[in-house]
């Protein structure tokens, strides 16, 4: 949104909608060749809205309604291998059921874009937000981008198409937003003009296509101890390339669409002594807390990572070096580990830094548990008192 008030109603370029609607709106602008979806829960409103665009003939997409999430991912893998621009969306246990093919999509270097509405994995059965679904496949080889609100989910989705198809990257991208908290929350969304989106994403330029019968190729064959390792090594390289390509594509995105995308957002953090690191919707609440504490003269700040895979470890190390204390907040647990996935990432990024701040971890919001301003204030208080434990749990009984 613009910093000032929205423009007057007539001819305005924004409208109120849910985070899920905003992504569907973006998908309409992208006009993918193929969209596959499992049309039953845990599917989200993203696909409900997009299938409406499809039914109304507004998009040229071939829409495939499949019998399971496993098949949805398989269908987009097939479509992308044929050279199509393919998308899908899922959440929670739907993503879990896709698992096997999620890995294959990345290993086959297929630039699929998938919107994930972050929701807790069962059991016990829970439909609300946490990051256990996408964090569960953080090592699947997909790029992961997280969104604070519907606005960012919308922009990240459009960005992801070009980013995934970048010739140096060619990897699938997961665009994540918080289940219910932003996916079902109605907020004003500021759109990019259809023409600008079209200009930015361009036409897909696949290097290979299964449909190109004059140049036949083989995808996903048996690959044992002779070459599997080399292929994995290349896949790792592709992910490394993505780190730099992100910046190039972001530059182009800003030039064409006027929206800025960074590895992470630094909010009042540059001169701060105490910094909080948190992803997605909670970062919005944390910004209000930072403002409140700043007014009291407390030197606090926030870092909100947007790109989680590949992780911008060098840049985030630089941003956190020399701070007195840093609290990393994780909306998922890594059972038996020293902390949540984001904490582990930042700890290892800072391992060799000479100016390493005191680091601690807060697990929060599992299964949609509300995280209030007071909760976040408590984290800052812990930091400033200098007494946080290495691993803490926010807002949990016992």
């Amino acid at each position, binding site marked *: 949104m613009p910093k000032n008030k*929205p423009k007057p109603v007539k001819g305005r370029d924004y409208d109120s909608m849910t985070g899920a609607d905003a992504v569907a709106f973006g998908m309409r602008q992208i006009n993918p060749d193929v969209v596959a979806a499992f049309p039953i829960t845990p599917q989200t409103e993203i696909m409900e809205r997009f299938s409406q665009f499809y039914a109304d003939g507004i998009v040229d997409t071939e829409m495939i309604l499949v019998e399971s999430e496993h098949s949805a991912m398989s269908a987009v893998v097939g479509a992308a291998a044929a050279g199509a621009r393919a998308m899908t969306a899922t959440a929670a246990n739907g993503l879990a059921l896709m698992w096997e093919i999620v890995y294959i999509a990345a290993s086959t270097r297929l630039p699929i874009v998938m919107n994930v509405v972050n929701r807790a994995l069962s059991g016990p059965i829970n439909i609300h937000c946490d990051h256990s679904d996408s964090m569960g496949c953080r090592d699947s080889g997909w790029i992961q981008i997280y969104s604070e609100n519907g606005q960012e989910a919308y922009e990240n989705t459009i960005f992801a198409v070009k980013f995934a198809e970048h010739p140096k990257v060619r990897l699938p991208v997961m665009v994540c937003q918080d289940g219910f908290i932003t996916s079902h929350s109605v907020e004003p969304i500021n759109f990019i003009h259809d023409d600008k989106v079209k200009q930015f994403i361009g036409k897909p330029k696949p290097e290979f296509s299964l449909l190109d019968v004059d140049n036949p190729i083989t995808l996903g064959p048996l690959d044992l101890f002779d070459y599997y390792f080399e292929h994995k090594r290349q896949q790792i390289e592709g992910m490394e390339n993505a780190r730099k390509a992100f910046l190039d594509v972001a530059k182009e995105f800003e030039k064409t669409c006027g929206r800025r995308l960074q590895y992470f957002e630094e909010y009042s953090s540059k001169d701060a002594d105490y910094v909080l690191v948190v992803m997605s919707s909670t970062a919005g609440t944390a910004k209000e807390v930072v403002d409140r504490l700043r007014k009291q003269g407390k030197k606090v700040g926030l870092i909100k990572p947007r790109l989680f895979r590949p992780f911008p470890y060098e840049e985030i190390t630089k941003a956190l070096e020399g701070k007195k204390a840093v609290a990393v907040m994780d909306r998922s647990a890594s059972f038996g580990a020293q902390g949540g996935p984001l904490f582990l990432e930042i700890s290892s990024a800072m391992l060799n830094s000479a100016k390493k701040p005191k680091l601690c971890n807060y697990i929060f919001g599992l299964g949609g548990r509300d995280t209030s301003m007071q909760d976040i204030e408590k984290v800052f208080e812990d930091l400033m008192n200098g007494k946080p434990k290495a691993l803490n749990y926010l807002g949990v009984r016992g």
Partner: protein
Amino acid sequence: MLELKFFGRAGQGGKTAAEMIADSALDEGKFTQSFPEYGPEREGAPVKAFVRINDKPVRLHCQIQSPDIVVVIDPTLLECLNVTEGLKENGLLVVNTPKTPKEIREQTKFSGKICTVDGTKISREIFGRNFPNMPVLGALIKAKEIIRMKSLENQIICIFAKKIGEEKTKKNIETVKRAYEEAQIDG
């Protein structure tokens, strides 16, 4: 920032009412956010919906703990929920009920402004059915003009005209206006 909390029962249109208030405010140049609380969805279950209206973009993504305004669409909820929990002392409580504001004050012990309207009766007389979500909005903006009547009318037309046709849309506007006239305020 203004924060509102709606209490209703699933199927009564609490979510729609909340979104209408938010969208009307958006039309008036404000920044807004509205969201329902989801649970096991079944008709008749108590549900909540929330609205934030602000002059700056709304960045908070937590629940509303101390609202400025509480709107109760179904009066039976007063008996099973503490609807005024967290409601600011100088806040506003709007209830769809045949009771007077004084009777509601007695029942809830709330000390701030109270507004009541028999939205169910109005809706039954105009529609022949109970759609209590629209009349409470008429009462709400009489007690506190957080949005203009004209903006609400526009929203009703925007949302209902296509869905339920012109005649029923007009009836919705009629219920809102009559509720505005008949609402009683105390405090």
